[in-house]
């Protein structure tokens, strides 16, 4: 018997909110132990050089210094990486970017560690630096890694693009560029470790704790069970908080010295050495009929992979899969490349490569519409993915395709609101952009596992390895369990982010926690409910199928007065020798994109969205105000209303930065603006009013029909803003960030 949902869709307060509001939430930087050592890393000031000799003698005898470590002190594997293990924890042969770690100092105080680092000298033999992917891919380029400079090179081929060009009546070709962007989490990052005998425990913010755990065990040359990784509260991730981080160095120093240790990233260090969003150059061609039907698209993209591979493969794969946008196009050809350079490392950031390709495909849609004198909504509605459509990877979509509805909602809202009339030098216009986004890691069949136990009191303990990085996953999991087991959220205790206690429920990335991990949590709850219901049926001497569960327990509709409480059901289970515990295991049905053609069904479900941006452009100064943003997102099913809205509002803010202000300026491998005073993330004065118009096209394989929204929400923002700026000024800009200085120059030239 199904009952109406009690908690699903509600703005349930976050489970961690009281701690966070009262300053009681503990982040890695807040953790300390008596006798703790403080760590600092000496980093390369060269973009590319061979290490000849490292002089640490003066540092070793500096007062307060306890140990100085170089590559030769690493007991295990001195290489880390998600797909290719190419990144040294402490460089041995070469340094490959400005910020590459070379020496680790452990001292009694931060000041002593900082002073000692200054006393170390490294003899280098400088090598030619390579600072663009184009230069890296030149035939005579110096090799950054032994394997060469090609990091990713893959293709997607559907139909025959040349045939589309032959049949087309309009062909539009443009080149788009996006900048290198920093996650800029407010928490720059820290790690703390202890060592007891040969067991190392490390506290570190990590969006993928189980991967970091494996890397640290390998680094120390220890079996995984000798390392315990615990994730405290995380001060923002957005794709960061994974891979080589302070926790790795704390683990190494504690293992070597047998003392607790702590390392904290300075803001500048965080900017220099954590991974960045890839800069892309995308050569994009659209071939269409005069009636607006798109016959084919071709996208040739090259991106800057930086000094180490990290997850460039996933970023470029995502970009490739989504390059054609949320449209059914018979002929598609995509080439997605990333090259090693001597620039800072690039990796995952909210949306991976999809926000970059969305700038291209959504600008092209508006250019095509303008060329054909069509309405931007009409051309999107005409080509948009609908039930039964085939994506560019040849995946047939049958369920949960809310694109049309998102377009209609934004269209309706924009026409209801209207466009402000020009005011002085300011001109206003709306712009629109759509997107689709595959939920989860492309082609990953790795199951998400969660475990749920009932206590003797009839409460529940949920074990989930996945970490809440701020987005609210812990609250969402609690709501799902409470919904299935018909109890108050307060009855559920969550154990999360601890490799000794939790199963691997999956990474807090690829927008998969709601859909994949959430589904495994729902299955664990359903499996536990089945066990408890069977026990209750035995007590009531009724068939278990007929029982109903509410807050007071199980009962049979024929006799609602007789109840079996959760505690009684647990007791009965135990008397039968059964454990009141269950597991949930879920992996979406997916296939890896084919190596040659990119064809396959890489994602179990797709999110859809359309955003409309109202901008006001000052025609004299080039200043752009994003006044309003209307965001319609098909999320499958809302689990937590505040959570969904919060993801959209935060993404829009990040998208405004991506479109208008944010870019790491990198010259000869050096980041020129690592500080918040020079790298401009939006403040409260820079963000638009955001209206979330939610669409719930339920996904049958998701928990209660939910899909995910964390990354999808940033994808259409920048192109919607650029399309609005074009509508207001007549200037089509194909490169972001479009700063007010750049727009001023363009307005002046006009």
């Amino acid at each position, binding site marked *: 018997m199904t009952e109406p949902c009690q908690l699903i869709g509600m703005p349930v307060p976050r489970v961690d909110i*009281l701690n966070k509001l*009262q300053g009681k939430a503990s982040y890695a930087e807040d953790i300390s132990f008596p006798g703790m050592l403080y760590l600092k890393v000496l980093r390369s000031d060269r973009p590319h050089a061979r290490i000849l000799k490292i002089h640490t003698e003066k540092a070793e005898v500096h007062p307060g210094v306890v140990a100085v470590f170089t590559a030769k002190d690493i007991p295990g594997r001195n290489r880390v990486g998600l797909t290719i293990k190419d990144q040294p924890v402490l460089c041995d042969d070469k340094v490959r970017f400005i910020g590459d770690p070379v020496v680790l100092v452990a001292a009694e105080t931060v000041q002593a560690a900082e002073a000692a680092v200054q006393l170390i000298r490294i003899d280098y033999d400088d090598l030619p630096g390579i600072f663009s992917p184009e230069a890296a891919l030149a035939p005579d380029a110096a090799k950054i890694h032994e394997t060469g400079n090609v990091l990713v090179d893959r293709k997607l081929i559907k139909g025959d693009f040349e045939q589309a060009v032959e049949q087309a009546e309009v062909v539009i070709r443009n080149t788009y560029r996006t900048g290198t962007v920093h996650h800029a989490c*407010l928490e720059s990052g820290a790690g703390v470790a202890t060592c007891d005998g040969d067991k190392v425990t490390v506290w570190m913010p990590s969006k993928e704790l189980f991967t970091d755990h494996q890397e640290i065990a390998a680094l120390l040359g220890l079996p995984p069970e000798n390392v315990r990784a615990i994730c405290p509260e995380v*001060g923002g991730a957005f794709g960061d908080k994974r891979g080589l981080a302070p926790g790795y160095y704390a683990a190494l120093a504690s293992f070597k010295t047998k003392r607790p240790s702590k390392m904290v990233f300075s803001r500048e260090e965080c900017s220099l050495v954590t991974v960045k969003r890839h800069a892309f150059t995308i050569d994009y061609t659209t071939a269409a009929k005069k009636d607006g039907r798109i016959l084919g698209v071709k996208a040739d993209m090259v991106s800057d992979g930086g000094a180490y591979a990290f997850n460039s493969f996933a970023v470029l794969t995502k970009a490739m899969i989504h390059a054609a946008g949320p449209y059914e196009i018979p002929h598609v050809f995509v080439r997605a490349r990333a090259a090693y350079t001597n620039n800072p490392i690039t990796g995952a950031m909210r949306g991976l490569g999809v926000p970059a390709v969305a700038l291209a495909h959504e600008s092209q849609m508006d250019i095509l519409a303008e060329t054909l004198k069509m309405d931007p909504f009409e051309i999107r509605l005409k080509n948009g993915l609908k039930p039964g459509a085939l994506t560019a990877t040849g995946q047939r979509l049958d369920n949960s395709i809310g694109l049309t509805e998102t377009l209609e909602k934004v269209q309706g809202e924009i026409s209801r609101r209207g466009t402000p009339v020009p005011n002085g030098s300011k001109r206003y216009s709306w712009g629109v952009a759509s997107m689709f986004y595959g939920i989860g890691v492309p082609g990953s069949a790795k199951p998400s596992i969660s475990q749920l136990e009932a206590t003797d009191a009839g409460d529940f303990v949920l074990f989930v390895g996945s970490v809440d990085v701020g987005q609210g996953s812990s609250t969402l999991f609690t709501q799902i369990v409470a919904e299935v087991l018909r109890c108050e959220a307060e009855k559920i205790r969550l154990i999360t982010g601890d490799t000794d206690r939790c199963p691997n429920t999956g990474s807090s990335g690829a927008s998969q926690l709601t859909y994949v991990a959430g589904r495994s949590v729902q299955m664990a709850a359903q499996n536990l409910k089945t066990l408890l219901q069977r026990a209750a049926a035995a007590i009531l001497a009724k068939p278990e199928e007929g029982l109903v569960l509410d807050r007071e327990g199980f009962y049979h509709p024929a006799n609602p007065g007789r109840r079996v409480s959760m505690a009684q059901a647990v007791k009965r289970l135990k008397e039968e020798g059964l454990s009141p515990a269950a597991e949930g295991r879920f992996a979406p049905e997916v296939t890896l994109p084919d190596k040659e053609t990119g064809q396959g069904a890489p994602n179990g479900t797709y999110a859809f969205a359309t955003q409309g941006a109202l901008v006001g452009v000052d025609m004299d100064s080039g200043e752009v105000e994003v006044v309003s943003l209307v965001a319609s997102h098909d999320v499958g099913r809302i689990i937590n209303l505040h959570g969904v809205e919060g993801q959209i509002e935060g993404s829009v803010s990040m998208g405004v930065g991506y479109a208008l202000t944010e870019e790491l300026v990198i010259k000869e491998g050096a980041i020129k603006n690592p500080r918040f005073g020079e790298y401009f993330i939006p403040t*409260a004065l820079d963000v638009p009013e955001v209206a979330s118009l939610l669409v719930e096209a339920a996904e049958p394989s998701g928990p209660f029909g939910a899909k995910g929204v964390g990354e999808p929400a940033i994808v259409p923002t920048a192109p919607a803003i650029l399309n609005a700026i074009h509508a207001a000024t007549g200037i089509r800009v194909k490169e972001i960030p479009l700063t007010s200085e750049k727009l001023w120059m363009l307005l002046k030239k006009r």
Partner: protein
Amino acid sequence: MKVRMRVNGNQVEREIPPDRLLIDFIREDLGLMGTKEGCSEGECGACTVLMNGKAVVSCLIPAFRADGAEILTVEGVADEAKLHPIQQAFLEAGAVQCGYCTSGMVLSAKALLDENPEPTVEEVKKGISGNLCRCTGYTKIIRAVQMAAEKIRKERG
């Protein structure tokens, strides 16, 4: 050197080196970890505390400058028993995500509302514009501050 100040209503006295920053005094000497350090140069506002009722970035102020001052950190905002109306409004509006900016936001909001109990949206935005938040896009924070203003007005009748 010796400094004395009232922190969250409690008199404290400590011997400190002259270059001790207020944030380190609060976190390390007093063990109040709710005040966060985001950038160490006054740009992000995560370390905001109230000094004699004014919002200041504690990462830029030497602790000795707070000698004799009244300091309020996030730990002192709520009464023993219940949340401050600003905290309650943040809870109801869903204005918290990762939480790293939250302490500073709450204190900037308090400084604003203490001075201007009926701020407009623009005044709220201006009042918290020195506090960066990467998660929320500020939408729910701005709403929360307005809700808090309403709650405080009601409490005062």
